């Protein structure tokens, strides 16, 4: 990759249209409010222009705007942009030619933008009189020249969805009919002509394949799969067009693209269709009404990529290149040559749309497994035989390996290296990441190298909606702890076509092979929520539990609920009702002898939010460990933490009675439905990023009043005495004491997470992804809500730092150095076998993986540890002690003789 340019994450970064020129391209973004030019050679932004508007208030930005961008075909260096009420023109050199505001009303909406050699034409729909007002503006200075109107039968929404513009034509589909409306281009000619093309069934799509001042090609796709291509030719010295159908036979799923080149005799039309793992291309030359010189190519794809989503055909210096974007997010570039088609580029762009991540430990090596086996037996005799047999097999394998080394040398070294990469290392530092992307592609990535081990594409995939984001539940069905069984992972997703159908796919995370016994696409109920059983059922496998729309709970695969869930500890489930903005808690009672595989839930609590909208829920990581129950204070007393494992954080947004926007953060207990913490922040804007761990919560938001990002940290304590030291119950009458502090953050926040270690002994660090591409590791003690403003010797004894309102970020704590990663959406942290080490995986537009050591490396030797000095000094000591011993004995003997 030569260069890359990352645009803004806000609306100004959303590309509306790209207009290609020879050396550079002009990109219109932000609903037609930004124009910029990028040079192909080096990615340099040559110029940027912002639309000059007078009425840009923030409220208006939220309303869906409509934007049209066209390149003037008669003057290719000029681009006209219509953004709601703003019409402006820019030249490809970065000069703003003119900009005018067109008055709009609620009944008058600007819809179409057309251009001629002299005029820029705006078609606005007047919904009162059902007329299309056509206004002509001078191309030179934007002065309104004249206007006319014509009857219009479509409403505004249909006009946007079903109509396209081309030169001076507006094409609208109306069921089985395509209307072609010719807009007059000069003042003398006021005739509006409408002609029709009949299709065999309802028209789904109109696409303009090629457009020039004299000729255009369009494609009409009907819902029965029939595709027709029409060629339009301009009549001499009029503004009217002739059209004829091109005789081309197409498959229902094929895509069409047209390329023109100066060197080419005519235009070439490319038809592409995907068929399993094969792409088929037909290239022909357009010749009046027929196609000639048809050539067919086909190329085998390395994997199933689904259907084609985008196709572009171009001829660059006599090389025919086809660029495709596939359904699985892959970017393909295929070169068509005389000797056939060749895949020259394949990038898995799906990796930039990761929505779920899980990590699996790698499998044990054979020797490690044997050790496990060696000590696994019961009974004296079986243990003895196991021991002998395993040691014999170890000996045999040792000799076999020696033999292999002598006979084959290094020949199968590569294979062995590959195998070694899949084997767990001594400290369990290397893992396998399972990532699910929003397009339905699942990847297995080795953390050691970042290499993709396997990938699976599920074509009918659609993720679940989770507040303002999408998510796919991904579960450890069987962990890697059971070395005799391969681990298993399951994903649950909806069907792309019928959103009520739920699919379950279970696969081996090492190979990606589907486990067909645990894979289904037909659950007889509509799923509201899915979670994992607390107990393993058969062969160490956990089962999935589904809550359906009737609040009934089901297991998959079907097993009695009494086996899937603990019968001694009651199970509580909460569901969120979006229409009522209420959380409802349910209780699940399971009898030990009950063989039922599904049961009804009983409502036990309800929390409702009036006049505020829940925008996010945050739960603690399942791997969260609390090592110490309290904090030792400076006077040697203990402050006990309130570590309620049933807490969830809820973020709500609303407007109070003084019309001030606010954000509320609640900590809800999901067993009793009580509120343990509620904070109101006024004049604050979401997104709110939350970390919930141990007995504390850290959340960040944007403060509109001071225009800065802030973080609030709160800790919950039981107090000086602990209510119950052995177990925690939500029914305990504990009123947690809350301590809170707010801090100013030096950067914005894209994502936030806390480090995870195996036992939770190591101190915690907060990993924060910032919009400028940095991943910052901040020790939690900087967020500690107990940081005092005036430091007493007692606080110093405890190790507290003096309170400063701003969190200072050292550049040393940027864990990705200069490898900036942009638009990070999530951070995943995992514990390793070493207590000091936590794994961090950040994902978004870019991926970044590293290890962090929140308390430094306390359980490892440093890289520069001098083994030689230790070795030699040991040897020296041993030798020295022998020598000393000898001297001592001689001395003793001499003494005895005295």
């Amino acid at each position, binding site marked *: 990759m030569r260069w890359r340019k990352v645009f803004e994450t806000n609306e100004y970064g959303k590309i509306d249209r790209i207009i290609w020129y020879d050396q550079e391209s002009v990109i219109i973004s932000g609903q037609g409010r930004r124009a910029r030019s990028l040079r192909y050679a080096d990615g340099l932004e040559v110029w940027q222009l912002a639309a000059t508007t007078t009425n840009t208030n923030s409220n208006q930005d939220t309303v869906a705007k409509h934007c049209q961008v066209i390149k003037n075909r008669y003057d290719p260096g000029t681009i006209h942009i219509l953004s709601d009420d703003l019409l402006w023109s820019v030249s490809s050199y970065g000069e703003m030619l003119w900009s005018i505001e067109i008055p709009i009303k609620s009944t008058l909406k600007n819809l179409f933008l057309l251009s001629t050699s002299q005029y820029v034409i705006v078609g606005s729909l007047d919904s009162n009189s059902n007329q299309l007002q056509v206004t002509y503006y001078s191309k030179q200075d934007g002065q309104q020249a004249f206007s006319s109107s014509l009857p219009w039968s479509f409403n505004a929404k249909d006009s946007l969805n079903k109509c396209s513009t081309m030169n001076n034509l507006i094409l609208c589909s109306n069921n089985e009919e395509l209307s072609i409306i010719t807009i007059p281009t000069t003042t003398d000619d006021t005739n509006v002509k409408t002609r029709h093309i009949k299709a065999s069934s309802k028209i789904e799509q109109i696409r303009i394949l090629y457009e020039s001042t004299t000729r255009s090609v369009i494609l009409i796709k009907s819902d029965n799969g029939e595709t027709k291509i029409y060629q339009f030719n301009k009549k001499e010295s009029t503004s009217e067009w002739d059209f004829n159908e091109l005789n081309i036979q197409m498959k229902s799923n094929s895509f069409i693209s047209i390329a023109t080149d100066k060197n080419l005799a005519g235009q070439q039309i490319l038809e592409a269709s995907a068929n399993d793992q094969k792409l088929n291309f037909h290239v022909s030359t357009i010749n009046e009404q027929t196609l000639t010189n048809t050539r067919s190519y086909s190329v085998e794809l390395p994997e199933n990529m689904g259907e084609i989503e985008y196709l572009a055909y171009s001829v660059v210096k006599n090389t025919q290149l086809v660029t495709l974007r596939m359904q699985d997010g892959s970017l393909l570039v295929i070169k068509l040559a005389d000797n056939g088609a060749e895949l020259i580029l394949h990038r898995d762009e799906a990796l930039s749309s990761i929505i779920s991540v899980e990590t699996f430990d790698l499998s044990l090596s054979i020797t490690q497994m044997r050790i496990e086996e060696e000590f696994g037996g019961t009974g004296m005799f079986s243990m003895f035989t196991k021991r002998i047999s395993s040691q014999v097999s170890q000996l045999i394998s040792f000799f076999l390996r020696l033999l292999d080394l002598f006979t084959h040398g290094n020949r199968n070294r590569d294979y062995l290296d590959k195998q070694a990469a899949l084997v767990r290392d001594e400290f369990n530092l290397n893992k396998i990441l399972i990532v699910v992307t929003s397009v339905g592609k699942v990847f297995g990535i080795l953390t050691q190298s970042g290499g993709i081990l396997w990938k699976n594409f599920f074509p009918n995939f659609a993720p679940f909606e989770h507040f303002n984001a999408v998510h796919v539940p991904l579960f450890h069905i069987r962990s890697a702890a059971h070395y005799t069984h391969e681990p298993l992972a399951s994903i649950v997703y909806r069907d792309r076509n019928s959103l009520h159908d739920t699919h379950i796919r279970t696969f081996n995370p090492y190979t990606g092979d589907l486990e067909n016994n645990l894979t289904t696409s037909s659950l007889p109920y509509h799923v509201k929520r899915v979670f994992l059983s607390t107990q393993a059922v058969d062969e160490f496998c956990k089962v999935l539990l589904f809550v359906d729309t009737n609040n009934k709970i089901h297991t998959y695969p079907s097993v009695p609920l009494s086996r899937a869930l603990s019968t001694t500890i009651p199970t509580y489930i909460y569901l969120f009702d979006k229409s*009522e903005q*209420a959380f409802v808690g349910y*209780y699940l*009672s399971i*009898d030990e002898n009950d063989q039922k595989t599904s049961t009804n839930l*009983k*409502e*036990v*609590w*309800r*929390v*409702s*939010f*009036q*006049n*505020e909208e829940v925008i996010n829920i945050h739960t603690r990581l399942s791997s969260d460990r609390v090592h110490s129950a309290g904090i030792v204070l400076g006077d040697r007393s203990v402050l006990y933490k309130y570590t309620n494992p049933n807490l969830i954080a809820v973020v709500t947004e*609303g407007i*109070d*009675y*003084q019309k001030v926007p*606010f954000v*509320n*953060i*609640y900590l*809800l207990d999901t067993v*009793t*439905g*009580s*509120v343990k*913490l*509620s*904070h*109101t*922040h*006024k004049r*604050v804007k979401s997104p709110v990023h939350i970390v919930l761990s141990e007995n504390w919560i850290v959340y960040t938001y944007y403060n509109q009043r001071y225009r800065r990002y*802030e973080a*609030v940290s709160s800790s919950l304590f039981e107090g000086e005495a602990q*209510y*119950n030291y052995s177990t925690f*119950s939500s*029914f*305990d*009458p504990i009123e947690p004491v*809350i301590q*809170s*502090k*707010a*801090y*100013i953050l030096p950067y914005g926040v894209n994502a936030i997470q806390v480090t995870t270690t195996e036992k939770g002994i190591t101190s915690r660090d907060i990993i924060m992804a910032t919009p400028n591409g940095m991943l910052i590791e901040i020790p939690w003690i900087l967020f500690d809500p107990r940081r005092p*403003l*005036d430091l007493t010797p007692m606080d110093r004894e405890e190790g507290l730092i003096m*309170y*400063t*309102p*701003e969190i200072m970020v050292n550049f040393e704590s940027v864990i990705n150095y200069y490898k900036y990663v942009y638009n990070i959406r999530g951070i995943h942290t995992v514990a390793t076998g070493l207590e000091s080490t936590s794994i961090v995986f950040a994902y978004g537009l870019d991926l970044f993986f590293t290890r962090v050591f929140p308390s430094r490396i306390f359980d490892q030797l440093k890289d520069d540890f001098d083994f030689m000095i230790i070795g030699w000094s040991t040897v020296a000591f041993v030798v020295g002690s022998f020598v000393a011993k000898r001297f001592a004995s001689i001395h003793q003997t001499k003494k005895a003789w005295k």
Partner: protein
Amino acid sequence: MFEQNKLSVVLLVLIVQLQLILTFDDANSGSVSLNFEDNIDGKFSSFSKLNIHLSSQTNFDLTPSRTIPLSQYERLIDFKSDYPYYTLKVHFKRGATQDYVMTSIPMCLVLQAQFQYTVTLFVSENGYIVGVQVTTGNSTCTLSNINQIEQKTEYNYKATMRLQLNDAGPQPDTQRFLEKLKRQQEAKINSQDADNRPFILKYWKYLLPIVVIVVLQSAFTNEGGAPAAGGGGGT
């Protein structure tokens, strides 16, 4: 002319104030009517009703509208249902908005406490009830313990209610931090200024050794001959 202007301004201010009070009144004083229900009869039935004014008081005592006879109390102890929970449902009505919140605790805890418990209502920013919590002061109980508790002919609800309002989230404490910095700086300056002791007192540590050296030196040079002579005499 001027007077008239002044009058109109005053009037305007008054109107604005009135409007402010009205809007404030409209949103905040609207009392909340609460209706408490529980499930000890097997279905939800009301046992207390209450109208409260927000922001005036946070602790209330519930006045029960019914009592629990001994027979029902004993029946509850024998409760062998698969739903061993005491559920409290609080219906609230504020203006046109009407909804309910609910919570549950093990029935046994309530029986043990003889229907004496604390209800905490969580009130949101806009004055709506978000959630409810019931605490009895215990977290575990066994039914056998309850049987030993002295028997009464009738049991009365003894519930107290507490309102918990949303806390205002903390703000970065820049003000106090800056004040502290200022104080520190001032203290530093003061300590420098206040040191207007005489030169001798201030630097006696450095002066003393010099003085001692000088004194000693002069003493040695003065007595230089005499001790040396004395020494000579000795030998």
